[in-house]
């Protein structure tokens, strides 16, 4: 399932893949952009009427800044703007500065569809960085497919999708889930699991995969429950957990419900230093709302934590804080959103064109060694190869990274045997 790479062979393999891809050759991809040379004529890099001039290229940022989802999507907007700033500071893409048009999806799926139509059909943007919930992505998907747009989608999500017009820069479900469960089984000797989730497709699909994986390993799921979004009363399920005494609470609760869940868990006397809890939905962003003291000791399985100790990340965190304030926290999705613009830039430069078809053709195999999470590469199924890490929540709202998969996890949006 995962493919091993040695540090040494990584570049070579990528290189071969790169050559294998039948695209405009020559300009070797390098994550450190070349100084802007003589820009290619617009007529050559833009044959489909996108909003590209001799100096600028226009992209879209489309997230909710109002409504219930604004809470979650703010970080993504900030990351995307930071990436665009940085790229512009380095000379832009194909010698053109990136201009962005920001649209508010207002936490409302039809609005997302309407705004994506506007961005693609009126503004003719070269790419869109946006969406957060699956529902909003599902709503805009037909628009992107019909208008042949390009969407970089940052959120970890349920998989079950592979659109030619979308690049998924967060992890799909198996990447997060399998590594996490394997780890908890191995390290904690877990035998029984209690699965919890908010009531919509991502938690349900994820728990389905988790359950299959748990049962494949001969272990047991002792409970599985879902709650309406925004639910704030978890006392009943906490009582059940207390009685069932599972080895692991596997929680995929999202949004405001998290706050209630962890506070009530703590208040009920469940100490997460003793009771193992593994989540794939709580990033540093969510902890701000939950309060570090309420979740300290919990484990999270995802690909990025703010505390990751590598030079890429240090630079990223610093730049992010310099731009958006020192108090800010950066979660997994924020980092994934940051990757979007860079991946697009790399693909455009490889394709030497903004044309969507050419960018898409160039994308497979694009790698980013400058990614804050370390290294990512675009799989031909439009998802990213990435490592999965386990973090342990600290009282200050950060995670200690205590484990990472040795290998990159292969994205597998339609996992055989887990459906």
């Amino acid at each position, binding site marked *: 399932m995962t493919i091993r790479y040695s540090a040494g062979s990584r570049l070579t393999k990528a290189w071969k893949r790169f050559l294998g891809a039948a695209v405009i050759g020559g300009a070797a991809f390098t994550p450190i952009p070349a100084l802007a040379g003589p820009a290619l004529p617009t007529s050559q890099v833009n044959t489909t009427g996108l909003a590209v001039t001799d100096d600028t290229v226009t992209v879209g940022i489309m997230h909710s800044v109002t409504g219930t989802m604004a809470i979650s999507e703010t970080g993504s907007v900030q990351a995307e703007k930071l990436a665009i700033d940085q790229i512009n500071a380095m000379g832009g893409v194909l010698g053109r500065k990136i201009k962005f048009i920001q649209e508010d999806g207002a936490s409302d799926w039809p609005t997302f569809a309407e705004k994506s139509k506007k961005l693609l059909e009126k503004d003719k943007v070269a790419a869109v960085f946006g969406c957060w919930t699956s529902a909003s992505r599902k709503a805009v998907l037909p628009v992107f497919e019909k208008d042949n747009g390009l969407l970089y989608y940052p959120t970890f999500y349920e998989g079950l999708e592979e659109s030619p017009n979308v690049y998924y820069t967060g992890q799909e479900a198996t990447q997060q889930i399998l590594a996490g469960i394997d780890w908890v089984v191995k390290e904690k000797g877990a035998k029984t699991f209690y699965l919890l989730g908010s*009531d919509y497709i991502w938690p349900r699909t994820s728990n389905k995969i988790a359950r299959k994986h748990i049962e494949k390993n001969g272990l047991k799921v002792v409970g599985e429950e879902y*709650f309406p979004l925004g639910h704030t009363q978890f006392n009943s399920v906490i009582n059940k957990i207390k009685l069932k005494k599972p080895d692991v609470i596997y929680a995929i609760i999202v949004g405001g419900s998290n706050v209630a869940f962890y506070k009530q868990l703590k208040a009920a006397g469940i100490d997460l230093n003793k009771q193992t809890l593994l989540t794939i939905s709580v990033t540093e962003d969510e902890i701000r709302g939950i309060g570090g003291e309420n979740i300290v000791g919990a484990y999270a399985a995802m690909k990025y934590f703010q505390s990751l100790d590598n030079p890429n990340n240090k630079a990223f965190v610093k730049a992010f804080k310099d731009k958006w304030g020192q108090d800010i926290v950066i979660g997994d999705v924020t980092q994934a959103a940051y990757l979007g613009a860079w991946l697009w830039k790399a693909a455009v430069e490889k394709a030497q064109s903004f044309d969507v078809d050419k960018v898409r053709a160039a994308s497979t195999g694009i790698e980013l060694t400058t990614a804050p999470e370390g290294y990512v590469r675009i799989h031909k199924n439009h998802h990213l190869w990435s490592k999965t890490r386990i973090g342990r929540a600290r009282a200050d709202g950060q995670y200690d990274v205590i484990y990472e998969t040795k290998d990159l996890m292969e994205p597998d949006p339609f996992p055989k045997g887990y459906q």
Partner: protein
Amino acid sequence: MFDGYTASELVSIFVMQGFAGLILFSVFLLMALGLAIIFGQMGVINMAHGEFMILGAYMTYLTSHVFKGAFPGIYGAYFLVAIVVAALAGAALGWLLEWALIRHLYHRPLDTLLATWGVSMILQQIYRSIFGAREVGVELPDWLMGAFHLSDTIELPVNGVFVFALTAAISTIILFMMFRSRWGLQVRAVVQNRPMAGAAGINGTRVDRMTFALGCGVASIAGAAFTMIGSTGPTAGQLYIVDTFLVVVFGGAQSLFGTIASAFSISQSQSSLEFFMSGSMAKVFTLLTVVGILLLRPQGLFVLKMRK
């Protein structure tokens, strides 16, 4: 359904579920009290009720920050201060709102509904502009953490006990104010016969404003209490509004005792159902039952019998 539980576990389930129901009851009642005062006594449909609750939550958040900065030594006490601050802030805003808007709409209850919906949108955006779109966490003082261990398997969370106690206290105070204070006397007189109350020398306008402010203040106290168990974000208030209205209507709009009974029955049924089915379905069933009973008995559980 009970397979796999031992007898003692079943007892524990019973006790702890009962207590979970009590906590839910406290939450519902706290939410509904303010509304019961405003809707039940004044006939105003305040759709911004949820936003008044959130105001209380944000006040708690601010108070905790002030304490962290200025009085770290007595940080644990911030929560009690926060409740007072929340009550005052809610009452002040309510006073203002009544003066600016509500008093012009007393004879058009459905229009108060629409206008206060507009108020709720504006308040949400104000919160978002001031506190940001993200949820803010309020750190609970240590003394509210943990659980009372009654037995090996029976544990009652301290904050749950506190919410329950707070609700009991607030309800008692409100009942006391309604039925023992001169202000409550005026409110009841105005509700029963507004023109006659005026002819007896009671300033109905002032009573209205105070009543509205009190209802809003209580809503904010509920919001402050919610920071212990829920989230604080600009839009969190909307989650509660339907439930809250149902509690009040189900209880019989003009009866505070009805509100208490209705909060109790709704919370207990939801809490028990949650044990047997998913949270979503439990909620659907509870709401359906409430609506069903309201179809049979539209005036709610309790009606004040009065001859006109």
